[in-house]
């Protein structure tokens, strides 16, 4: 759409600007403030320069948490995106059955995150949970509170359960927007199922898939509540992701300086990666002439 140049449009944006400035810029400034100061208590702060950043960049704790986080987000994206597309391709196109699928699939998305953690905490327990009990009955040694691998598998299955539907719904929305004529043309050309997917469906889904990947990346990178409730970051530090570590540091140990420096770097990493996704997304939008 051709947009009119109109500087007065700023007035329409002003309320958002003020509100977000209040709820984002002021807190962020506080974080910046802490990140360059040190304290000996009594609310007396003094300038510490960039020493906290330096400390954090050389701390194994942060690099380990970052490594676990990267691995987690990579696994999540590798599972949820293909699975979501697969589910979307198999969803019924119309009718009651289709509405039913949509409602059931959205259900996990609206459950409070700590309840998601609780559900899986119960579900995985060997004594009272269906999953744990079944695995135990099958003779598989499964214990997500003691065994690192089991904890990881449980956290990942939980996230797949929680969020795959989001990818599926987005992909489904993309599929619904393909005009029937495209499929008919493919049929006339006797295109294989794979060719239809590769040359018709995938390009048409590209835009929404970018949104899905962007959202899934951001949210999996910020994940806190679900693994915190499920495993508490354990066993040991095995599932201590960045947010869990940060909250431990800031609210648990009250190490404000390092925590603030950590926060800023954390935020920068997310922003940098998201910016790449966003740029790709807007380029795709332009190419489609939207």
């Amino acid at each position, binding site marked *: 759409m051709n947009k009119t140049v109109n500087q007065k449009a700023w007035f329409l944006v002003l309320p958002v600007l003020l509100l977000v400035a209040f709820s984002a810029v002021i807190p962020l400034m506080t*974080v910046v403030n802490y990140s360059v100061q040190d304290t000996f208590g009594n609310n007396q702060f003094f300038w510490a320069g960039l020493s906290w950043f330096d400390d954090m960049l050389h701390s194994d704790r942060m690099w380990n948490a970052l490594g676990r986080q990267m691995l987690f987000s990579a696994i999540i994206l590798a599972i949820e995106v293909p699975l979501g597309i697969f589910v979307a391709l198999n969803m019924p196109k119309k009718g009651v059955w289709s509405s039913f699928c949509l409602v059931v699939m959205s259900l996990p998305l609206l*459950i409070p995150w700590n*309840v998601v953690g609780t559900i899986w905490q119960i579900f995985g327990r060997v004594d009272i949970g269906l999953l744990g009990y079944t695995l135990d009955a099958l003779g598989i040694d499964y214990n997500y509170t003691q065994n690192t691998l089991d904890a990881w598998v449980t956290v990942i299955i939980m996230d797949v359960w929680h969020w795959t539907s989001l990818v599926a719904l987005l992909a489904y929305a993309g599929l619904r927007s393909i005009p029937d004529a495209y499929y008919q043309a493919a049929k006339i050309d006797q295109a294989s199922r794979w060719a239809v997917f590769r040359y018709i469906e995938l390009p048409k889904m590209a835009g929404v898939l970018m949104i899905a990947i962007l959202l899934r990346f951001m949210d999996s990178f910020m994940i806190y509540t679900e693994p915190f409730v499920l495993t508490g970051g354990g066993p040991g530090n095995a599932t201590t992701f960045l947010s869990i570590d940060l909250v431990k540091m800031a609210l648990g140990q009250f190490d404000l300086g390092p925590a603030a420096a950590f926060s800023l770097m954390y935020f920068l990493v997310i922003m940098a990666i998201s910016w790449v996704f966003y740029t790709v997304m807007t380029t795709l939008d332009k190419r489609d002439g939207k």
Partner: protein
Amino acid sequence: MTDSAIPEVVTDTRTMTIETPRTAQRRFRPSGSTVVMAIYLLFLMLPIYWLLNMSLKTNSEILGTFSFFPRNLTFANYETILTDPSWYMGYVNSLIYVVMNTVISLAVALPAAYAFSRYSFMGDKHLFFWLLTNRMAPPAVFALPFFQLYSSIGLFDTHIAVALAHCLFNVPLAVWILEGFMRGVPKEIDETAYIDGYSFPAFFVKIFTPLIASGIGVAAFFCFMFSWVELLLSRTLTSVDAKPIAATMTRTVGAAGVDWGVLAAAGVLTIVPGALVIYFVRNYIAKGFALGRV
């Protein structure tokens, strides 16, 4: 023209193929898609069913026997929650701040989304990305500063504090969704309305808002959803008066161990509002998740 011609040809071939024996046989077998969807939906429902199952059992039955159905059906767990103010006020508190947040987010996002979809102005692209970065901000980063900010202005443990804090990620999302929907409304409508003598506010309320009603519904749904599911900020910003249900649930861990039945019942009750909201927007869910960009 050509569009309408092609379907006819295809419907013809389809009616022809139905009569061949191979497809007739296939009709009695469930198709691959149905099987895939059934397995996937089962995977989604099982953990929720298990929670529901547990909420209808007594604690001794939960710990003593293992069964797919409650043997002694009991609603005592629900009774505990619905008769104890310290429990059910958690739901009330959550609903209050979620509704407040939805109203605030939509009220400020509507004009902004209009501006982004219709006009170009200095710094618009940068502003839009900056707004989105707030959606990317990890709540963990903001927990402590929010606590200090709202304590210092005397809003700690009030509903409005949580509602404002959740605006951090809901306002950018609402702007993003609404902008997508507004882009779909042709600009000629605006111009015609102005020629007809509508002022901007009158046009916006009387003509434009009804046109994007589904977009507003979807945006409200998402604000509701993300405010409802968030725990870290709402827990950090409240202690007693505005404590959300999600935080109240930790009460079930007592000296005598975990009260599993009540915990499960509380969990089931947190799913209910979400399920109700989904029902109302079910036809727009798919488009909404695509943020109006399909």
